[in-house]
């Protein structure tokens, strides 16, 4: 039995995290994400979890990494400037192969930018913000309900693949209050990190020879029994630092492949009114809601237009967008930035499709009319 | 004494060596700190060009050791071990004689 609530995006992320089993939140105040720590400062103690507001963004990201190491499902939330600060910590989670959920409530940038206004200008940062070769998973919910369900899925993927996962919401979704029918907790699929079955003496968290490409990782209950070492240095299958060429190569490739080889499990996208479409709109996040309205209106006017909407934005939906490139002559890419996913679309479609854009980076949502105008122009 | 010994988990060196103070030559870097802090001139650095450090710490006069543990406490490399005061052991002294001491 599900219940209907009036909640905003930030509250939904918070409640979903708790439903997913998150019991550690560390954060720092930053508009427009501050309601997440505010909500969790109240809720975490109620569920026996840990809440700490740290002295800065870096500390709070590092703390979430530490809590994950110690077996807890952990999360930290911020916005542009704070996410920039957290990059080193996120890279540490990548190298240590620790589950971590990072919420970026995207706002206008760069720098201090537009604290109370919307953008989607951090999608490339989510992919490449931290230095070094690494893969990342990122999801971009469109609606309030999707904010909840994608947060659950983000935690599941983080635990399953032992990797950081970004939840990319934005300033609009954060403070949009609406009626949401939350799924019943019993209906939710919650994934936990695989537990070691061997004795502590036989265990280390990187023994891929013995345990497979994604070795088990002790949860909070098992952590005290299993002593192991983790480091941000490149490591071999013993978990200790190495500079050996073969070992480094193998480890780096494995860390990327553990995600890329599982794209079918990680991907999520929507085809909207695409069956008979001869024009496709590429949109994600709250901007897809504007595109949806534009498409419905265009359809009324007889234009056969549809939308491809990635929900998992990283890894990028290569296969699907490449296919669109082959089957369509025209594509409209729309995002609330000056072009970021645009370049991924261009890369993947290899010049097969004529790409038009509806881009804007002024802190306000793109209006459906803007997208409709472009649809009419291109049709 | 001398030669290659490894530090095995759970077994302190002097259980193997049975001398009041023992240097683990695998771990010793001949830094000289123990030689300096020893109040009884038990230890000395001896040149040995077969080792990367060029020298090695040797227990030159074990019979003079008073088991104060200054050397053990000051050694940064876990390379020197001292028997507890009161434990009786029999060992070869610097002149080749067998001696028995408990402190």
């Amino acid at each position, binding site marked *: 039995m599900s219940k209907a609530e009036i909640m905003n995006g930030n509250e939904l992320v918070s409640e979903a995290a708790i439903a997913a089993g998150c019991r550690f939140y560390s954060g720092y105040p930053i508009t427009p994400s501050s309601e997440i720590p505010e909500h969790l400062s109240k809720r975490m*103690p109620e569920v026996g979890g840990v809440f700490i507001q740290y*002295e800065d963004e870096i500390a709070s990201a590092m703390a979430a990494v530490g*809590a994950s190491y110690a077996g807890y499902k952990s999360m930290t939330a911020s916005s542009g400037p704070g996410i920039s600060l957290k990059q080193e910590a996120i890279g540490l989670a990548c190298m240590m192969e620790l589950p971590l959920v990072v919420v970026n409530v995207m706002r206008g940038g760069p720098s201090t930018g537009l604290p109370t206004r919307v953008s989607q200008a951090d999608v490339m940062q989510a992919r490449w913000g931290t230095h070094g070769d690494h893969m990342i998973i990122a999801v971009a919910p469109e609606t309030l309900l999707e904010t909840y369900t994608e947060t659950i899925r983000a935690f599941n993927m983080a635990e399953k693949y032992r990797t950081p996962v970004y939840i990319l919401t934005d300033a609009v979704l954060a403070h949009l209050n609406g009626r949401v029918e939350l799924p019943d907790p019993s209906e939710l699929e919650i994934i936990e990190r695989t537990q070691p079955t061997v004795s502590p003496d036989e265990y280390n968290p990187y023994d891929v020879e013995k345990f497979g490409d994604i070795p088990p990782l002790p949860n909070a209950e098992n*952590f005290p029994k299993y002593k192991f*070492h*983790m480091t941000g240095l490149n490591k071999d299958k013993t978990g200790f630092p190495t500079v050996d060429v073969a070992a480094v190569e193998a480890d780096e490739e494995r860390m990327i492949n553990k995600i890329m080889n599982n794209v079918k499990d990680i991907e999520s996208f929507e085809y909207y009114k695409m069956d008979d479409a001869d024009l496709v709109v590429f949109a994600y996040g709250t901007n897809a809601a504007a595109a949806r309205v534009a498409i419905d209106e265009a359809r009324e006017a007889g234009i056969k237009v549809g939308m491809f909407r990635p929900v998992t934005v990283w890894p990028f939906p290569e296969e699907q967008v490449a296919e669109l490139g082959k089957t369509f002559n025209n594509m409209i890419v729309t995002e609330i930035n000056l072009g970021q996913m645009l370049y991924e679309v261009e890369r993947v479609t290899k010049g097969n499709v004529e790409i038009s854009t509806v881009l804007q980076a002024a802190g306000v949502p793109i209006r459906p009319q803007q997208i409709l105008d472009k649809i009419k122009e291109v049709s | 004494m001398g030669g290659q010994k490894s530090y095995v*988990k759970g077994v302190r060196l002097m259980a193997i060596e049975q001398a009041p103070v023992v240097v683990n030559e695998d771990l010793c*870097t001949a*830094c000289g700190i123990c030689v300096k802090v020893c109040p009884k001139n038990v230890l000395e650095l001896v040149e040995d060009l077969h080792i990367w450090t060029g020298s090695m710490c040797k227990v030159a006069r074990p019979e003079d050791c008073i088991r104060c543990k200054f050397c053990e406490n000051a050694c*940064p490399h876990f390379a020197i071990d001292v028997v507890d005061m009161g434990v009786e052991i029999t060992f070869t002294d610097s002149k080749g004689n067998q001696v028995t001491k408990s402190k």
Partner: protein
Amino acid sequence: MATDYSKYLRMEKLPLYWCPGCGNGTVLKAMITAIDELGWNTEDIMMVSGIGCSSRATGYVDFHTIHTLHGRALPVATAIKMCHPGMHVITFSGDGDSTAIGGNHFIHACRRNIDLTVIIVDNWIYGMTGGQYSPLTPTGTKASTMPRGNIDPNFDIAELAKGAGATFVARGSVADPISLKNYIKKGLAHKGMSVIDALSNCHIQWGRRNKYGDPVKLVELIKEKTVTKTKAAKMTPEELEGKYILGILHEDKEKKEYTEAYKELVEKAQNE
């Protein structure tokens, strides 16, 4: 009673990779001896380090260990302590890591008075990166980024710890490893934020630039530059110039410890 160090070390990782005579090993040994005397189990100990020569210590000890980022051991240690308040949590890192890049985290961990033991291996330099000066490098001495002599004032990290709210602050040195061990032991046993400034010898990076390239001579210099609390009380400010005061410099058993306060908060929330 002899300490079996092998109980606390990942023996297969030895020999320690630090320079011959490096004080890192001496401080590590003092910590291990203290732990042995306290009778703790290695399963109950969590050691967190940052980046630097001393921070490599986490690779050598047979505890729960994590080698994090430069300056960031404390937020990680705080989080782990909050998650497992029954564990003994220790941080082990250098003067640059703890007081420069880690300075902000240091202040706030002290402020919270969370039950951690923070061992600062204070060798007056950034050793691993080749001898750059740190906030604790003595003024006037040479470093790779102060080739004409350090113009930066250094400062008393013990005073900062105390001012920020730590409830056990001590200073020891590798010149007197037994006292150092005793301060660490008291800090480990203390329930609250314990900070031990462990003066150490980096004869290769600090020492060689300042004519103390020999470990024995540098340890002797440290001995000359340190003075016990009781002796210092009888000395004039001029006599104390450039000297480091050893001993337990601050102890407060009353201030509430952070995990205790959080536990009460949880109880309050769950009984609402």
